[in-house]
């Protein structure tokens, strides 16, 4: 089981295999970020403010490049409020002007009022660079795993531990 400990090369190889699993996952994520030009190309819906389109736990796929047309009214976008790192999924309902400085207003389909209250102090509208992507696809329910993991942080430790053990103990 731990016979490899006596052999430094074998131990290094096992460590490398474990490291490569982690780094490959990370680099795939970063690769996707680069392709979609979005710092977070996959997000999980955390609230019901976009029901019935998206439910809590849906996984959204984002695209943040304006190749054919500008981001405009009707698109569901994910944005970050200034100085806050919580991505919000809402729909663009108003747009004034064009180009990177166009003023955008968003609103959740299931909310009574628009998002002006959610924005930071002194921020009355969004601009293009606040947006981290438009929703181009979704997978229902899958994101619930991450909601569980963030609501019960000890699950993360358990999962990492099990994965690490499996790699160390098994040498296929």
């Amino acid at each position, binding site marked *: 089981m731990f*016979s490899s400990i006596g*052999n430094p*090369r074998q131990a*290094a*190889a096992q460590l*490398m*295999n474990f*490291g*490569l699993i*982690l*780094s*490959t996952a*990370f*680099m795939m994520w*970063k*690769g996707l*970020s*680069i392709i979609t*030009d979005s*710092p977070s190309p996959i997000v999980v819906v955390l609230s019901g403010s976009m029901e019935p389109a998206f439910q809590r736990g849906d996984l959204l796929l984002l695209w943040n490049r304006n190749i054919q047309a500008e981001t405009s009214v009707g698109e569901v976008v994910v944005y970050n409020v200034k100085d806050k790192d919580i991505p919000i999924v809402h729909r663009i309902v108003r747009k004034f002007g064009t180009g990177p400085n166009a003023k955008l207003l968003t609103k959740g389909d299931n909310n009574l009022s628009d998002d002006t209250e959610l924005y930071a102090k002194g921020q009355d509208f969004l601009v293009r660079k606040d947006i981290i992507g438009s929703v181009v696809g979704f997978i229902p329910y899958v994101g619930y795993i991450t909601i569980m993991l963030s609501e019960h942080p000890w699950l993360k430790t358990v999962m990492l531990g099990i994965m690490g053990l499996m790699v160390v103990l*098994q*040498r*296929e």
Partner: protein
Amino acid sequence: MAVSQERITVYNLADLKNTSDDAIPNYLNSLKFTQSHRLTDVRLSLGFSAFTLAAACFLWDYKFGFESTKLYTGVAVTIYTLLNGLLTYWIFYVEKGTIYEGTAPSGEKIKISTSTPKKTVPEYHLSIEIEPPKKAKGGKKESFVIIRPFTEWFDAAGHFVVAPFQGMLAQSISVVGKADPKRAAPPAGAVDQPPVYSPEMLAALADAQVSVVGSAAETATTGSDAAKKAAAKRRKA
């Protein structure tokens, strides 16, 4: 007879292979073979440089954010993909399951790669390449394959038995036999005569539905292993 303290699960093919793989360098190095770690070292340096790159990428991404480091991240992702592709290529097309590379005391270069191609057949496949020393002109590169069942050097409890394993290597690989003449000669007394089975006896065994694997075989038929071995030998002959 030397028997390992450690026990493995005899039904786990990966365990059987790994234990045997580990035994080969131990044996050959004890015979004053000089092991070359070239293949492993290249694999390790490819893997660790890829990992280091990813770690660096993680750090700058964490510190400076996505937007300001986009270009570097893009380059890092490309290089990482290349390194990983190279690593995969190295493992599948260059190493090809090589577990030992080295030089015999007599100067020959030897390369041993192993595999277990059939997932349900516990047979050890060894591909051996022997290259004569550079000085000896006219020597030809020699390569051959040995296929042996693991039952020859694992007992029913999962202990690795050293003597038959080393004997197998010394008898089938000339270079190893030269370095270890004691093992190369078949042990006196231990005659390789398999017990003779009559067709009636085999039919009776089949009727009793005795499985040749599993614990039933251990208790019910101590001879069935020998019979299987004999069958394997006959197949090869």
